[in-house]
């Protein structure tokens, strides 16, 4: 393993690497991303390893475990290169057939390829699958090509070219200028112009400055940062190197939540490789520029995603936010100027340097440049990670890429922006998605979670869910957030328990306004959004809960009633075994009875019944 002794050495190494590599090399990439891991990708990869050995193909076929391949709904995914044949829902049992048919005889295994949800047409090649065709990957570009644990793979895809470029031909000012002209805005939620933030920090007084990567990804329903850290860790490191050079930092931190153990492992490995090759450390490639990185593991607190809280956490304190200004760019880690950016923001930086700010600025809308990665989940057919130019409409994302709503249900709402965002109803499906448009309908871009809902979701329950999430996570430092959330949760609980009054709605709106005005940090300031947006677009649902004491979506438990239909019940006792309170009684092979007094409405009987004998209203 070489240590790059000069900038030319890096170029030469890449040249030789590419010359050594055969573009026609057969490769099997088993997805080990966030969507496939829980569905057994390790077992599939092990099966490939065994089968390739059995057939004597180890030397001929390259087996890799890749990052996220996007279309998580059809896990486990496998892509065969160079032909880009995508197989889906692969199990270890399918592996011998894939090896035999495709790798040895060049035939496509029809039953494992993509099938369009509406037309049923079958497609083998990645570039023809509508889910991928509608995307423009910048950040996700390498995820299904490289082995995330191989620095060579990253270098072969042009990795560290951006670093080489700034060190050979750009001043720090020129780098900041380029990022500013690209129009890149922060992908962590706020959408603050990245170049401007860098400039403030660059111009701040002081010798010692820091940069931080925010990999806390606390928004429930979002996993793009996880996918990038796990699937392309060197892109984050290279982005940070470029940022460090621009602002004059010699030390940086990547703050990763501990709930992402694989991301921690991959980043650690990548940092080790970068140090070994001389891409991190002092006097990098004899350029005179030095920078090193450390990982800080989160310890389980959502509020630590907020930048000032995150900084306190790195300093070894509890994660309580501080009032801004001063902004971290002026006084951040240990009171020194600090640039903090999100994972996806950092991952965009190398490409902006490589391909130029004009290239980047040509993508997207007037005020939102480039692409955005969304985690498209919930009630859509094709859940997964998508990356589209800013300005793509919700309809395109949900219906063209997402393949429409599951089981042909009707679209009800899409939730964006996590606990700081809102629920967007179908009137706005043609809204082009960017920072400003989402805000104009009462939501926000947030980190990029997009949770699609159909009639089985209750909007009152969704609002309550986010409030209880925030109530748990509020650090308690400022009163408006701590107490406001408690009161709001109380009011929603009253409504969900059938004790709601019309006046509660006005009271909630009033509380929302007070919290937005008076809270210390974004957590409390935006906590109102899930409530206000559902109140605005789905007020009728609240009213039904209050007036009729009914939950039309059959979600709010206290308003439900379960019963067992004696006609259909077979007396299999599955529900009896499941019931936690012993509310169901009866003889085996006889219809069962449910005691309404004892019933806690948990619904486990409903779920366990194979015969649809348990009814709910």
């Amino acid at each position, binding site marked *: 393993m070489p240590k790059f002794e000069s900038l030319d050495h890096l170029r030469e190494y890449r040249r030789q690497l590419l010359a050594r590599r055969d573009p026609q090399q057969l490769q099997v990439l088993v997805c080990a991303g966030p969507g496939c*891991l829980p569905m057994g990708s390790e077992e599939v990869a092990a099966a490939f390893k065994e089968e390739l050995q059995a057939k004597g193909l180890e030397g001929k076929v390259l087996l890799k475990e890749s990052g996220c391949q996007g279309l998580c709904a059809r896990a486990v995914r496998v892509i065969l290169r160079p032909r880009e044949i995508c197989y889906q829902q692969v199990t270890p049992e399918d592996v011998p057939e894939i090896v035999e048919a495709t790798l040895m005889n060049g035939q496509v295994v029809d039953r494992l390829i993509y099938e369009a949800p509406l037309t049923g047409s079958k497609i083998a090649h990645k570039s023809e699958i509508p889910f991928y065709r509608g995307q423009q990957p910048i950040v996700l570009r390498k995820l299904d090509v490289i082995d995330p644990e191989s620095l060579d793979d990253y270098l072969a895809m042009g990795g560290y070219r951006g670093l080489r470029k700034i060190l050979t031909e750009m001043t720090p000012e020129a780098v900041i200028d380029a990022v500013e002209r690209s129009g890149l805005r922060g992908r962590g939620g706020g959408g603050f112009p990245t170049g401007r933030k860098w400039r403030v920090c660059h111009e701040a007084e002081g010798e010692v400055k820091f940069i931080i990567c925010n990999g806390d990804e606390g928004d*429930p*329903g979002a996993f793009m940062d996880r996918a990038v850290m796990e699937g392309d860790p060197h892109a984050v490191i290279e982005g940070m190197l470029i940022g460090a050079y621009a602002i004059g930092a010699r030390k940086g931190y990547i703050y990763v939540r501990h709930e992402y153990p694989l991301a921690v492992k991959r980043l650690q490995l990548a940092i080790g490789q970068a140090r070994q090759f001389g891409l991190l450390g002092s006097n990098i490639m004899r350029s005179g520029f030095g920078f090193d990185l450390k990982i800080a593991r989160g*310890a389980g607190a959502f509020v630590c995603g907020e930048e000032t809280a995150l900084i306190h956490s790195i300093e*070894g304190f509890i*994660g309580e936010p501080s009032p801004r200004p001063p902004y971290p760019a002026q006084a951040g880690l240990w009171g020194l100027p600090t640039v903090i950016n999100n994972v996806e923001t950092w991952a965009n930086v190398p490409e902006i340097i490589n391909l130029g700010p004009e290239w980047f600025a040509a993508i997207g809308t007037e005020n939102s440049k480039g692409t955005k990665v969304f985690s498209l989940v919930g009630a859509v057919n094709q859940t997964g990670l998508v990356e589209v130019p800013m300005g793509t409409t919700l309809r395109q994302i949900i219906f063209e890429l997402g393949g429409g709503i599951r089981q042909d249900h009707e679209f009800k709402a899409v939730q964006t922006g996590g606990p700081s965002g809102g629920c967007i109803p179908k009137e706005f499906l043609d809204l082009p998605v960017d920072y400003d448009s989402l805000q104009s309908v009462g939501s926000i871009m947030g980190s990029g979670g997009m949770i699609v809902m159909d009639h089985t979701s209750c909007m009152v329950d969704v609002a309550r869910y986010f409030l209880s999430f925030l109530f748990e996570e509020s650090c308690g430092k400022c009163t408006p957030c701590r107490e406001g959330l408690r009161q709001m949760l109380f009011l929603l609980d009253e409504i969900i328990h059938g004790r709601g009054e019309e006046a509660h709605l006005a009271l909630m709106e009033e509380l929302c306004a007070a919290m937005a005005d008076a809270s210390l940090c974004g957590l409390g300031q935006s906590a109102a959004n899930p409530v206000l947006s559902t109140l605005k677009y789905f007020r009728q649902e609240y009213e039904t809960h209050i007036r009729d004491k009914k939950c039309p979506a059959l979600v709010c438990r206290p308003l439900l009633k379960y019963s067992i239909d004696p006609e259909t019940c077979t007396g299999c006792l599955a529900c009896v075994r499941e019931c936690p309170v012993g509310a169901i009684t009866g003889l085996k092979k006889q219809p069962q009875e449910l005691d309404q007094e004892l019933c806690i409405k948990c619904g486990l009987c409903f*779920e366990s019944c194979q015969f649809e004998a348990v009814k709910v209203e």
Partner: protein
Amino acid sequence: MDQERLDTILSRYEGDAADLIPVLQDIQDQYSYLPKDELKVVAQKLNVPLTRIFSVATFYKMFSLIPKGRHQIRVCLGTTCHLRGGPRLMESFSHRLGVEPGYTTKDMQFSLETVGCLGSCAQAPVAMIDDKYFGRLATDKVPKILKLYKN
């Protein structure tokens, strides 16, 4: 108290107060909780008041002041899991193990916890046992999965 075990952890750090959280994380990972005697030593070595250590230890969800079970079960209650049956999955685990979330079974085999989001939203509902993910976990699969981990 096993002084050597603790020293091995402390030797990885420079002894700055800023190392507090990583040190506690290492102790939590190795001991499955933060024993009081060890914390006193940490306070001394890092020159941090014990009260600050308790404030940190009780603020972050990762830390526990009482021992946890051999296996950590984390049931995801992220948005997508919430909508697709996460709470029911939670109840099913809770019912089968006979413990509420946040607690450990009497035989010290399992600790049951909820988590804000595990980031495998496309496979909701999701749970994690130690470092392994389980996706699309219907409640009827719970007994079978628990069996895998029972001794």
